[in-house]
């Protein structure tokens, strides 16, 4: 990207926000036309002192030592065209391609215009043919010249006059052999002039009629345009000052819809601009104060809905990045300042400029959108980010908030990954609890939480997310089982799911521990085989005590609660260390016994696991660790106790089965009585 001053050129990549190169002419020399780049050869072309042509490349440092050609006539402008030789327009209206010119720099340049002054020029390629258009002025009359270089044809048109106003600025584009010239008049209107390119007859100068395209007025106030560009067939951007009747004028960048004559977007520029606006590849470039501001824009197909602001995600002009001139050497900056048109800021120091910049940001809090937030998440301090997040949460919910939240969380997670100190836990928990999030919306969240061993977050995720992959579920399980109860006691875990069946009071627990110790008496273990079911249930005293702490139990309940597919979970589950598997099984067994204590086989409380979830996990765990369980001495007792309990249950249910059979038979007998061959019944018809 390239921009030009009077005696300074600088060249930088927008995405890097860093100048790539900087060249200056000798003191006393003035660059008289914008420096262009020849895209074919990657050479820069500058003209200083009207007649001296300079051509150099990136690697050249000193402008004085580069190629120099002194021309015979004054150059108005050099136009660079893609895939074509640059065109040099002389003040007299003569045009040469650069290569022709360089063959004989001192060649005679004809004078096409006598005493008109060129106001504006532009070059196009129309079907590999360079076309140059320039506008001249003489005594208030404006003329348009269209020159086709290959054809060696030059057409001159007279622009239709306008009462009391003059064209200030021009822009043009070419489409289907027709040049559309747009003129910004001092009467705050943009006019459109169509110039046909195919003009065979060598007539006398024609007068071009113009038509009103756009009136730059916004509800009473008028935009005094200074510069404008065409964005697409329906949109123009105008840089100018908005003069309301009672207030002082503010400079602003505006995007207008010409189809519906509406202002589409506007951006205030309180620091003032140079009045110039460039536009390359969907980015605006303009100076804002001492800063070159780049604004990305996007024009969507214009529709009435968009024009009246009813369309979602209509074009947004986000302040994207700044090319900060403050990064230049102070000396150079001062030089540039001197040369700038906006002299008011000239004397201000760099410090004040910085503060100015920050005020710019503060002035526009409304524009601090998700996009900006995403940016700030990338590098801002933890406190700042959290502050912004809080603001975000307090804001009114927007329709696309869900998606935005997803991207915010992803950004946060990315930051977490790169910056280990950064972890906005409260915000994340708040987000998951408040919003309908899912695993797929923020896939890395749980991975990060696992890494940080943030069990509370994991618990909430397991409870809320409908689509957790089995791998992650397993990882959670493993983490939960491996963390010690002592550690968990200090952490904040949601105990809602266990509170109604596990006593949390520590002293109670101790009492129970005693009972358990007694309950594991060997004689009960041994003679329990053939006793009746009721007796065996008594024996279940041994599992009355919960093998894990309430925090861990709550976490495990969250795992039980999450959805899974057996096929995908089983291979992971095989990797569970044997001790942890036994512990988990013990807990499941405990839950199962607890369930069976109640007639409806459900555990009390919210989010507590159902009996089928418990059974499924039990089966799954036994499937995964069958051989290990069989071999492990400490599992032996547990397994035998479980077996006895299950056997007692099976017996109990088989008894129920018998009762059910008898009752069914009764039902059948009752039905049969219903179908006797003859009866007298009472029927009431109303």
């Amino acid at each position, binding site marked *: 990207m390239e921009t030009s001053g009077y005696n300074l050129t600088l060249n930088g990549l927008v995405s890097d926000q860093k100048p790539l190169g900087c060249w200056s002419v000798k003191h006393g020399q003035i660059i008289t036309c914008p420096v262009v780049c020849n895209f074919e050869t990657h050479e820069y072309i500058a003209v200083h002192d009207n007649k001296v042509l300079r051509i150099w490349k990136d690697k050249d440092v000193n402008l004085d030592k580069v190629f120099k050609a002194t021309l015979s006539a004054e150059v108005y402008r050099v136009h660079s065209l893609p895939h074509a030789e640059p065109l040099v327009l002389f003040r007299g209206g003569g045009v040469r391609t650069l290569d022709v010119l360089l063959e004989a720099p001192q060649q005679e340049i004809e004078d096409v215009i006598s005493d008109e002054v060129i106001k504006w020029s532009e070059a196009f390629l129309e079907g590999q043919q360079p076309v140059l258009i320039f506008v001249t002025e003489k005594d208030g009359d404006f003329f348009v010249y269209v020159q086709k270089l290959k054809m060696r044809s030059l057409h001159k048109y007279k622009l239709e006059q306008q009462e009391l106003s003059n064209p200030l600025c021009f822009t043009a584009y070419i489409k289907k052999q027709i040049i559309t010239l747009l003129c910004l008049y001092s009467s705050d209107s943009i006019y459109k002039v169509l110039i046909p390119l195919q003009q065979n007859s060598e007539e006398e100068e024609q007068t071009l009629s113009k038509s009103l395209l756009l009136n730059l007025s916004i509800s009473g106030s008028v935009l005094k345009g200074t510069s404008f560009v065409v964005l697409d067939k329906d949109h123009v951007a105008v840089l100018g000052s908005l003069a309301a009747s009672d207030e002082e004028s503010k400079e602003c960048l505006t995007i207008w819809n010409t189809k519906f004559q509406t202002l589409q977007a506007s951006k205030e520029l309180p620091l003032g601009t140079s009045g110039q606006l460039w536009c390359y590849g969907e980015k605006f470039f303009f100076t804002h104060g001492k800063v070159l501001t780049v604004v990305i824009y996007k024009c969507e197909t214009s529709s009435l809905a968009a024009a009246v602001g009813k369309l979602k995600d209509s074009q947004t002009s986000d302040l994207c990045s700044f090319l900060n001139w403050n990064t230049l050497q102070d000396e150079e900056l001062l030089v540039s300042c001197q040369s700038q048109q906006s002299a008011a800021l000239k004397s201000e120091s760099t410090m004040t400029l910085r503060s100015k910049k920050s005020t710019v940001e503060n002035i526009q809090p409304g524009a601090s959108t998700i996009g900006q937030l995403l940016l700030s998440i990338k590098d801002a301090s933890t406190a700042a980010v959290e502050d912004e997040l809080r603001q975000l949460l307090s804001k009114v919910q927007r329709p696309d908030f869900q998606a935005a939240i997803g991207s915010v969380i992803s950004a946060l997670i990315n930051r977490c990954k790169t910056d280990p100190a950064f972890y906005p836990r409260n915000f994340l928990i708040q987000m998951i609890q408040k919003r309908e999030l899912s695993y797929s919306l923020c896939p890395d969240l749980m991975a990060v939480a696992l890494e940080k061993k943030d069990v509370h977050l994991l618990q909430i995720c397991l409870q809320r997310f409908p689509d957790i992959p089995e791998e992650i579920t397993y990882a959670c399980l493993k983490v939960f089982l491996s963390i010690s109860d002592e550690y968990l006691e200090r952490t904040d875990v949601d105990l809602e799911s266990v509170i109604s069946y596990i006593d949390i009071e520590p002293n109670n627990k101790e009492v129970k521990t005693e009972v358990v110790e007694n309950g594991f008496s060997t004689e009960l273990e041994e003679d329990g085989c053939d006793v009746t079911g009721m007796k065996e249930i008594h024996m279940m005293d041994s599992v009355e005590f919960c093998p894990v702490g309430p925090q861990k139990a709550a976490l495990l309940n969250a795992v039980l609660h999450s959805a899974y597919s057996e096929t995908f979970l089983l291979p992971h589950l095989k990797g569970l260390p044997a001790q942890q598997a036994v512990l988990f099984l013990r807990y499941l067994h405990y839950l199962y016994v607890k369930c069976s204590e109640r007639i409806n086989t459900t555990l009390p409380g919210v989010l507590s696991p159902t009996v089928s979830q418990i059974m499924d996990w039990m089966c799954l765990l036994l499937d995964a660790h069958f051989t290990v369980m069989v071999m492990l001495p400490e599992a032996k007792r547990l397994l035998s106790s479980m077996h006895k309990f299950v056997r007692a249950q099976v017996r109990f249910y088989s008894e129920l089965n018998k009762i059910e059979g008898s009752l069914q038979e009764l039902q059948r007998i009752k039905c049969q009585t219903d179908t006797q061959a003859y009866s*007298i*019944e009472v029927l009431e*018809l109303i």
Partner: protein
Amino acid sequence: MGEFEVHRVRFFGLVPAGVRCMAYQHRGCRLALARTDGAVEVYNFAANYFMEKAIPGHQTRSVEALCWAAGERLFGAGLCGDITEYDLERLHPAYAVDGFGGPIWSMAANNDGTQLAIGCEDGSVKLFQVVPGGVQFEKNLDRQKGRVLCLSWHPSGTHLAAGSINFIRVLDVRSGRTAQRIMVNYHVPKSKKRECVVWSIAFLSSGTIISSDSFGRVQFWDWERGTLQDSHTVSTSAALSLAVSEEEDSIVVGTSAGATYQFQLLPVKTGGQEKRWVKTKPFQHHTHDVRAVVHTPTALISGGLDAQLVIRPLMEKVQKKSYDAVLRKFTLPHRRLVSCARKARLLLFQFSQHLELWRLGSTNKTGKDGEVLPLSRMPEHLLQLKSKGPEHIYCSCVSPCGSWIAYSTASRFHLYRVQHEGDNISIKKVPGVPKLLLPAYQLQCASDSGRLFIASDRGSVHVVQLLEPGGCKHLHTLRPPAGTREAVYLLASSADGNWLAAVSGDWEAGLCHHCTVPTYSCAVTALAIHPATNNLFISYSDQQVGLFEFSIPEKQYTAWSRSVQNSGLHRLWLERDSPITHIAFNPKNTSQILLHDVYMLCVLDKSLPLPDNNALLVNQSTLKQLSEPARHRQLHAFKICKKFQPLLFADLLDERCLVTVERPAADINAELPPPVQQKKFGT
């Protein structure tokens, strides 16, 4: 409205005969159906599947095949060896022609309906020409050993496919030679070779022969090469019946396990040229053998030995999705088989070859809605009257006083005098019954039991005076003024004895010697004359119109009837699929009319407003929960009770007493022979 004492009768042991064969007439939308007892029925699909005609069976005349030929002529052939043409106007076999080939197993008419081919026990295939007024033997085709169980004409009429045991033959009609002989179980190993019966066959215009056999296979053969193209095993038991759609892109197969399958000719790839027969839809509507299937353009029809006729519309072919797409099952006949002596509280049940007279029980208790009352007297089977000879009973009737019983077979009319002496009962045949033109299609006794009306053919009604203590006299014969060829199948007499309404087969409801009710292009399913107002109440099989009330004295429809036609009946009422088979009146309340079909019983109160489509039609249970004033707002004319199903008969004995005769499907099934043994898991 009040409480009724309902005599709920379930001891009518009717077992409808199984369906043996069917024939569909595309032009008239009529289905002819023959039952295993030799009865032939004609259903009119255009008139809401109403059983339009019924020809009672005959002990010796089994029907193995039915054909529509030469327009609307119906032919049957059976194991007695005869081809029989049915007179659908007079509702009896018109004549029979001996096929001289032993029992006839199969019969098929060619596409034009000009020729009939029969397959005989002796292995011969014979051609008969259909001529006006009869059939004429044309020629014998090549004879081979083995009974010909099924026949199918090639649509061009040049060839005939004949299925026998173990082989299929293709016969050239012109030369009479066997053009091809296909062994159907050629590839079965010799050790396992059993007899393979080709039960059904179809010859497509493409030259493909489709056969279904006792191995449960449906096979597709190329007749010219005699090769097997495709074979599908649909059942472990036999595939008994087969029918092809007119477009020849779909077939339906019935099996002895009670299942039916649809096969469709579908492209192998979408848009591709190559097509294959694919088994697409299985249906299990029957419990027993599906002996007959028919493929109409819009529906699959199957008839089984469980006596059910099932019409399964093809969803993709039905235009209106709601009402036409409903599966229909018909088990019970659309005819009245029960007559009731209201005063004597007797019920007369008509079986195919005997009658049963029952006395209803009684109670001396009352109760609330839904209660079963204790019986003070049990119902009593008074007598069983066996009809002599092989002919089945056409119609029967008991007089309101219960002292006269009349019935008619195809050739004889019987009148009995029943003497009740306390608990004893004696029966005496009335001698000197006048020689009338038989058969009688409907019998109706006048309400004073003094006269008997006998519906006869050509629209005539004979009037016979019943004389005490046991005689009768033919008074006169009523004939319609315009004259008709069709027999009278419904009668209704007025209480005062002045009026008699009769309906003949061309749907004309006539009042003898008075006038004709405007003809409506739909069959009359029931009619009755109101005892007090002498209004004739008519219900039509077409549910769209349904009910009419015709004032006899004024010779026009009553205002109520007009208002019904103007406002239209409730949508759900119109969507019922079984016809109203009986109409009775409340003797004490002139505005109340009892109607019933198989699935509901309805007391129509003309004094109440008609329900509109938004109202709940069957609202009795709702009403019972409402308070008195709220009830009042919800009342409408149709008081429907669906408690008694399936309902053969319902009548009002007096203003507070109803009798319903039900025949639960489970009871019918219990009396059917066990179906093909199917191994069920765990048994």
